[in-house]
């Protein structure tokens, strides 16, 4: 396992170089120039050609793309991701600030999703085709069809406007997280219920569960000791896929609740072609994803020791 982790960490280097280079290329392939957009916003008017030339000289955009990229990479390796072109703030500091905000929102919403989805999904699987199962399936189907930002608006109508219980936006107090967390958590739970149900249902039909039943184990023991552990592997994998919410997938919800997370951070940078911010975001997101996926693989290995990552990148030999 340690060898595997080491190997995965080694992959980090080419992946980071490749992703950061691709991000650089993508920004340059874009038809618009950062100078035009940033200067327009900075001075509330069309920039002159002279201003554009000076801007490009100051930030090195007049040099070849390879020179720019290698300079940036050299600085990045020393922990210097540069400064935002729009307001001169430090990219790393801004990223960390938004990362913390996103982390709070993501982990609380995913925890909520698990708390909702696990009991409902497991019970639905146990009572397959019962009325409870049908209701839960309908609930998750309807839920999946609701976009998370729309759900957010609905929650604001109920809890902020109707009941006057919770703030409709902001970040300053603990209360502020409740509505965006509910919007994202409920949204994730809808799909998670279906995954949990299907996973548990599959496991329940396997021979070893039948054997456990024939040995006289109670349904609770079967579920907790035998079924759930195996059913957790696809659930953990899906939770990993939901990580996109962490990095940028929650932009609509973040925007709606004025939550200063990574989605808003990136949307603003992309809109203004703030190259150092976009580059820093891509690089740090790639690092995060690689580590997060590594952790998910380790969790899966703990859940099912038969998984062999040493052999051809992870074949199940069970």
């Amino acid at each position, binding site marked *: 396992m340690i060898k595997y982790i080491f190997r995965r960490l080694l992959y980090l280097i080419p992946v980071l170089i490749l992703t950061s280079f691709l991000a650089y290329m993508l920004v340059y392939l*874009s*038809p*618009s*120039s950062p100078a*035009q*957009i940033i200067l*327009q*916003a*900075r*001075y*509330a*008017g*069309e*920039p*002159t050609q*002279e*201003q554009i030339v*000076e801007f490009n000289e100051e930030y090195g955009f007049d040099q070849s793309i390879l020179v720019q990229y290698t300079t940036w990479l050299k600085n990045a390796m020393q922990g210097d991701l540069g*400064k935002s072109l*729009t*307001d*001169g*703030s430090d990219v790393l500091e*801004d990223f960390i600030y938004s990362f913390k905000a996103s982390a709070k929102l993501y982990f609380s919403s995913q925890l909520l999703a698990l708390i909702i989805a696990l009991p409902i999904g497991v019970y639905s699987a146990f009572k397959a085709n019962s*009325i*409870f199962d049908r*209701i839960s399936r309908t609930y998750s189907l309807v839920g999946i069809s609701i976009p998370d930002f729309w759900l957010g*608006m609905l929650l*604001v*109508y*109920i809890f*902020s*406007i*109707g*009941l*006057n219980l919770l*703030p*409709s*936006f*902001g*970040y*300053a107090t603990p209360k502020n997280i409740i509505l965006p967390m509910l919007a994202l958590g409920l949204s994730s739970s809808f799909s998670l219920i279906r995954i949990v149900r299907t996973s548990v249902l599959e496991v329940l039909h396997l021979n070893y569960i039948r054997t456990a039943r024939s040995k006289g184990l109670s349904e609770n023991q079967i579920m907790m000791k035998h079924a759930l552990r195996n059913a957790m592997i696809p659930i953990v994998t899906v939770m990993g896929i939901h990580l996109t919410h962490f990095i940028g997938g929650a932009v609509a919800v973040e*925007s*709606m*609740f*004025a939550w*200063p997370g990574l989605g*808003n951070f990136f949307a*603003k940078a992309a*809109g*203004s*072609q703030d190259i150092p911010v976009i580059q820093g975001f891509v690089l740090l997101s790639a690092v995060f994803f690689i580590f997060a996926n590594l952790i998910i693989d380790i969790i899966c290995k703990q859940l099912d020791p038969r998984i062999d990552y040493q052999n051809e990148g992870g074949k199940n030999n069970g």
Partner: protein
Amino acid sequence: MNLKLKKILCFSMTALMMVGFVGCSNVGASTKTAQTELKIAYGKDTGAVSEKGNGDMLLTIFAGERLVEVVDGEVVPSIAESWEVKDAENCISFKIKKGLKFSDGTDLTAKEVKLKFDRNIALKSFQWTELDRIDKIEIPDDNTINFYYKDGMDGYVALAGFAEYGNTIVGSNSFQTPGDPTTPMVEFIGSGPWKVEEYVKDQYTTFVPNENYIGEAVKLEKVTVNMIKDDEARVLAIQAGDVDAIVDYYHGGSAYTPRNLLSTLKEEGFQILKQEMPMTTVLAFNYTNNEAWKNIKLRQAMNYAINKDEIAGLFDGWISPANDAYFSDCSPFTTALGKQSYKYDPEKAKSLLAECGLEGFSPKMLVNSENIDEVKMAELLQSMLKESGINLQLDVMDATKFAEAKKGADWDVYSYYIGGPERRIYSRNEGRFDKSTPEFGASGCYTSESIVTAVQSAVDPFDENERKKGFKEFYAAIDAEAACVPLYYDAVFVVANEGVKGIEFVGTEPVFDNVTYKK
């Protein structure tokens, strides 16, 4: 179904119904108490700390002052008590009021005023200011600052340029190295009625009274400007009582309360304060890259083919159609022409197109997808122009692509605004119609010798009557040449709780200095 499950289901349904009922109910009114704080929702960050920028306009109105201001079209004193144009119009000299202080208690003298202009010139931040024409700046004494021009001062428009937001004066301690304007601006220290107490980027800015302000003290103890980017979210925030007012970003183009929600808000008891601006949304022609638009008959055909009442109808009655020539009657210098030269007439448009040999004309319109109103309007224009046999092709793209695409040749028309807050009435007209100005760039409107002459007669004279006469000539020239299609007159809206009193518009900008609030 077992009994337990039935009970759970019944309880859940009852809880949901209760939530619904409570959501629809009105909490009874109680005795109103005076509030000390006003919370505002605003669609932009105030940019109170920005290495090279000048901060948002709301910030500069709250916490800043300029040498002069523009009110009702006239340049009026502010930091400067008087000014004089001398040396054969090569120099303008301002006398600074004595005893002024910045919010940090430091003195505001000519030396501090010079710092900001040195910074703007170093950064080439000239937009709408005429600072590009300045040769040198001198401060003969603590209360005098002289600006010398390279080729003479460009009339009243140059004087009004000192009222531009970017020319807001900040104290020495605003800069990373105090007194060195080449170092980043790390704090906004102005001399306005408010001062910045706290700024959290992209979240909020709190303003408290500036105890060093020499004018009348503001009435509230605190104003918090919350940055809520999403238009609908700002509306939800005021409905939820989390903010007390929503202020449009009054530059135009983005971050304003959706016009189709204003009636609902009014019905719910909110105040809707409207101030029309000398700003008009027009359909502009790409005449520089497309010879066809140099034909006046084609431009006239487009004017006849568009029903402006129908366009204004998109905004639920809150916005007026630009049926008169150019600007609405909102300011003494923007009086309407009093005639409608191009009434909606698709048949006339068809015959003009036939005269141009352009039957089946298919112009391409650039549309910024991030402005929902613009998208809706483009779709309406597309169906409307069919009546005149014009097949409008829409090219919808994001804001960054849009900014770049409009510089190119591959388009025929796009909508954008001319004018703006009153302090820009001179510079914005000159910049949109006079090719020799640095601002003309990619946003210049159709122009000709007669339009340039007319716009100069509107923005240059120091004499008020001459300027008023010049504006009439300018409108008439645009009208005669069908230089663009004026679509609707823009306005700035403030939505506020019933108990908020004293919001004023000075010129076209909302001011909160005399606001009191009971709820």
